[in-house]
């Protein structure tokens, strides 16, 4: 009986990996390049590259196609995306994509990776099951463009609490803005992040000033990059994935070891525990390059926010650097919403309140 149960558990636990493997076989990866050689560099513009090198799910170069829209002045991004989708491409890799190309790829259900370096290395990285899981986890946590309300609670060792309420808007992989609604001393403050650029605006006082990702706007354990978080896959790639089936208490988890894509990312490394079934994080350790623990983030209380958004509604954080202190983030009214790019600009920062409906 025990053996049967154990066998069922093993089969269940490896099922998602098998599924991933099946996905890999079906994968068709197109990498933007200005050369026909897989050892060349990835092109910095998806819609303007000379060639697309197409690989199958087993890392084989199966086709090289010229980009027919490289010289087109308008709509090049959406036409390129449709062209690749018609060729059966499931994943596109380039250093950057235009917003229009991203939109077209999304409507075609084509995944995309923004990567630098050599074409062949990028294909290997994309095919790693860890990165596939990370992309899915990002989409499960929130839609690419959304609005939400969050309450931040800083809890001191003596139990005293300090609360902040924020309205947050996000678009695509690199644009996010947050507006403080309370307490009164912070009301109207807003922060904006465009990729690695961050600004803080304090009403009545001054113009938006540049801030850094490691600073904390509100004090407590959360810093700016936690409050204005981009997709994990936009900032990190999976270096290693553990599937600890041998440890019973971890058999329903993957452990992903993430490394920052650039030096400007707030944490050099992340160790992420992922629920295999829901593909959602349960715990993340934020580490320095030397693997020193900076903070631990716990994801709790998975809730249905509607419109197929099912994700943890509470995030708790503690840190060995702030012994006894804890910060909590509670999510509410998370919903899909599209915004114009102009919302995510320095000039618009004083007007963020006007987006609330």
């Amino acid at each position, binding site marked *: 009986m025990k053996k049967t149960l154990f066998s069922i558990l093993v089969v269940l636990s490896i099922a998602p990996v098998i599924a991933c493997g099946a996905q890999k076989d079906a994968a068709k990866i197109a990498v933007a390049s200005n050369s026909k050689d897989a050892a060349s560099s990835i092109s910095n513009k998806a819609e303007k590259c000379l060639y697309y090198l197409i690989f199958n799910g087993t890392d084989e170069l199966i086709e090289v196609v010229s980009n027919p829209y490289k010289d087109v002045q308008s709509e090049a991004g959406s036409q390129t995306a449709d062209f690749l989708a018609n060729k059966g491409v499931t994943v596109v890799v380039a250093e*950057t994509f*235009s917003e*229009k190309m991203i939109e077209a790829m999304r409507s075609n259900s084509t995944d995309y990776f923004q990567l630098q370096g050599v074409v062949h290395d990028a294909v290997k990285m994309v095919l790693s099951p860890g990165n596939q899981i990370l992309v899915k986890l990002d989409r499960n946590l929130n839609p690419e463009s959304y609005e939400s*309300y969050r*309450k931040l609670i*800083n809890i*001191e060792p003596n139990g005293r609490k*300090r609360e902040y*309420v924020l*309205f947050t808007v996000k678009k695509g992989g690199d644009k996010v803005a947050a507006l403080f*609604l309370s*307490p*009164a*001393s912070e*009301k109207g403050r807003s922060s904006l992040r*465009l*990729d*690695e*650029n961050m600004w803080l605006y*304090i*009403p*009545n*006082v*001054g*113009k938006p*000033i*540049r801030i*850094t*990702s*490691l*600073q*904390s706007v509100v*004090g*407590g354990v959360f810093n700016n990059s936690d409050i204005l978080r981009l997709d994990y896959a936009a900032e990190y790639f999976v270096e290693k994935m553990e599937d600890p089936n041998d440890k019973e208490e971890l058999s329903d988890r993957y452990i992903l070891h993430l490394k920052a894509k650039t*030096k*400007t990312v*707030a944490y050099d490394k992340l160790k992420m525990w992922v629920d295999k079934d829901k593909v959602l994080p349960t715990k993340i350790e934020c580490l320095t390059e030397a693997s020193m623990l900076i903070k631990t983030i716990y994801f709790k*209380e998975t*809730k249905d926010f509607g419109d197929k958004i099912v994700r943890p*509604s*509470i995030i708790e954080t503690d840190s060995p650097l*702030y*012994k006894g*202190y804890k910060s*909590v983030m*509670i999510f*509410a*009214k998370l919903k899909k919403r599209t915004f*114009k*790019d*102009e919302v995510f*600009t*320095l*000039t*618009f920062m004083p*007007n963020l*309140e*006007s*987006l*609330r409906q």
Partner: protein
Amino acid sequence: MKLWAAIGTLLALSYGMALANEEYSFDLSEIEEKPLHIGGYLEFRPVLFGLDKGSALHKLKLYDRDEGNILEEYNFTSLLDGSYKKGTTEFRAIVNTDLKNSYLGWSEETTLYEGYMSLRPSSAFNLDIGKKTLKWGKGYAWNPVAFLDRPKDPEDTELAREGFVVVSSDYIQSFDGPLKTFSFTPVLMPVYDHINEDFGKNNRLNFAGKTYFLLYDTDIDFIYLTGGSKTTRYGADFSMNITSNLEIHGELALINDYKRRFINSDGTVFNKEYDATSYLFGLRYLTKSETTYILEYFHDATGFAESEMTDYFSFIDKGYDTYLTSGDDSLLKEASNVAGGSYNGRNPMRDYLYLRASQKEPFNILYLTPSLTGIFNINDKSVSIGPELLYTGLKNLDLRLKTTFLFGDSYTEFAEKQNDYRIELRVRYYF
């Protein structure tokens, strides 16, 4: 329909109750959007001045009074910030009231800092009509390109300031590629009787504009002002992150035909007209231990030369001697008013260095920020040093203890101020 409404209400209630049952709660009424908002702060700020009886400005301001060695001042301030939103239109007013008790008795002043209507038909365009502050420039302590703003106090850069009556709009456009954002802010500024009359020459309609670019990862502004109330001027500024913990910024202002009035030690008034080029360079650096350093160098070509300031202080001494011997204070009154009082304004000379170091939450004491601000006059080598403690750990209450000590040789800017030091407590309650 009613059934759906009932289900929706039930779901919302159950969500609220579910959260309430947790250790943490998030009452959704906290995020309800209300058209009318009234906020602001109340402030009590007692100040103690340690007087320097031998200084030029003490002689100038207190020549006919004996106030002892220490002056007390009690300031009460209320700042009311109200807004009303309907559709794409918003009305906003900020009213500041200062009530002061000093050696001169009680005084009260109520000022409309801002009062404007804002139309926002889209996220790419807005139009503001009324009194508002524009806050141009990238510097922390000084903004030579802030052509339409009242000057900042470098010793308290976060003080709210009064605006001017303007018609302004913002047009914003975002792009893919190296140029990520472009925005254009044209401004019309009338200067007539009772409208912006303290800005410059009367009966003029001034035009100003700012174009902003986010190019690669650098903020860049180009600014101009023309129209006659002040001479035509051009400006540019930039700000960028070199690394994630190091930001640099700068400003450049070119002022055509700038007119400066100054006096010699006999009190003879001179006028000088020239094209003035002012500039500022600065950086903001965050260490791993969360100390933030802000360093700025400012060259103000509209400021007084060291010899001109020395002449001014000599003239005050001469006026004071005349007053002591004859009781005639006319020279002292002339000294007070010369050049529109610009000799006695903030940082009236040409070259300054600003350094502010602040430490976030030392020894893990949450919400406590000690800081030290130094302003160094490079021309006469006098200095102002201000240690400060800010505590924000009580909900909606800020407590700040600030001291300022002034050092320098005689006939230097900071040594000739009315006081040697000042101690100030600020208690501010936000509502």
